[in-house]
């Protein structure tokens, strides 16, 4: 028998993770912007972060706005494996974003250069993450 989880609670946990880490990322970049971390090239830093976060965040927020109380999927269940996969992918992805945003000056690459290089891997990974998370926000459950 396949182990399952409640879709509604899975949604809430994934959304919580995304909101928490995204909030931290926004705060980090905001403080860095005020601290002159990127000099006059602030737009490039925000231009790196927003496309990597907003697609998934928009999806999550859109679903919550459409169904604030999760009434549609109140009793729906889905595979625990899929849930863990989405959670792990999201965690790795968001952690990678946080690391890139924070350690730019501690590497041999300059911060904006590190962001550009990281986009090569984070872009495709972001696609996978959005797909995995999307299952919980578009799937109607079993």
């Amino acid at each position, binding site marked *: 028998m396949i182990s399952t989880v409640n879709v509604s609670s899975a949604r809430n946990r994934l959304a919580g993770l995304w909101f928490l880490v995204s909030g931290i990322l926004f705060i*980090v970049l905001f*403080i*860095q912007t005020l*601290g*002159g*971390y*990127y*000099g*006059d*090239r602030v737009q490039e830093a925000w231009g790196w972060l927003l496309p990597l976060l907003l697609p998934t965040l928009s999806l999550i927020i859109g679903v919550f706005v459409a169904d604030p109380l999760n009434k549609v999927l109140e009793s729906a269940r889905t595979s625990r494996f899929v849930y863990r996969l989405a959670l792990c992918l999201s965690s790795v992805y968001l952690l990678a974003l946080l690391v890139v945003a*924070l*350690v730019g*000056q*501690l*590497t*041999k690459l*300059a*911060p*904006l*250069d590190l962001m550009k290089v990281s986009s090569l891997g984070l872009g495709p990974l972001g696609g996978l993450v959005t797909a995995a998370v999307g299952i919980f926000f578009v799937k109607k459950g079993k």
Partner: protein
Amino acid sequence: MVTQNGESLAGANVVVVGTTLGTTIDVSGRFVIRNVPAGTYQIRITIIGYRPAISPDIRVRAGQAIELEVRFADEGQVEFIPRPREMAKPPPTSPPTWEEARPFPVDKPPSVNDIPRFPWPPPKTSAQAVIAAEALQARQDLRILADVAKALMAAMDSCGYGEKKYYWIPKGFALVSRIEQIQADGSPKPGKDRWSIEVATPRIFSLPSLLEALFTANAGYYRIVVFAVTPQSFAESDSVVSREDAMKWLHGGMQSLPPSIGNIPFTSEYTCTALIYEFEQVTPNHAPRFMDPSNLTGQMHLEKSQLRKALGL
């Protein structure tokens, strides 16, 4: 040399008879034959359309130049009019004055191969500090410019400036330091970071330093010190030098001061001015830009670099 109509005869051959010395007449109608040994010679001029003309005996003495006017008169007659002139005196044995010592015009460098010329008037500086002339003049050991150069070199050596280069400036010299990386307060960065042209990764040794590394810009500051020793007062030019161009100064100059400049007496007219060229790299992602002006005064730069103390000021 001209024809009877006053026209020049460019291309005519001129030979010192009995020697292998010779030349041709240039477009202005002139010719010069150098290094003619002392003796008595005839000059033969060969021109197409004319019979060869041979001058009467012309006596050349050691150290003497002969200006020879050749004029074609009527009926093919050629007139030679020699005018002996004394050449420059041999170099003096005592320390020469500037005018005597210079092997080149005051406002021109000796030659491309002798000592390179520093951009003059100097490019815009970030800061300047005039070293009090009295302070240098008070030093009895500074008699000629070479002594001043030696004192500056010793001071820079004691402050860790390994490489330096000399340039010509009007009636004096400029001594250029290697570019160094400094802290925002003007003190040199420690260790090898001082001579790096890239901003070093921040070192984390405390929570504040970690927060600083994570949230604030890792800016870099670079400095080049140029000592200009000249009796001429000068104003900066409007040109702004880039860090890369300023770094080339270290490759273009000479490692020692040529005697033609070093032997010039160091008189009370001379001043020594420290020209500070500072560059700021706002973040590692930015190209260094010239600081105009510096956040520090020239005297503060000399103080923080320890040069002020090393010069005994």
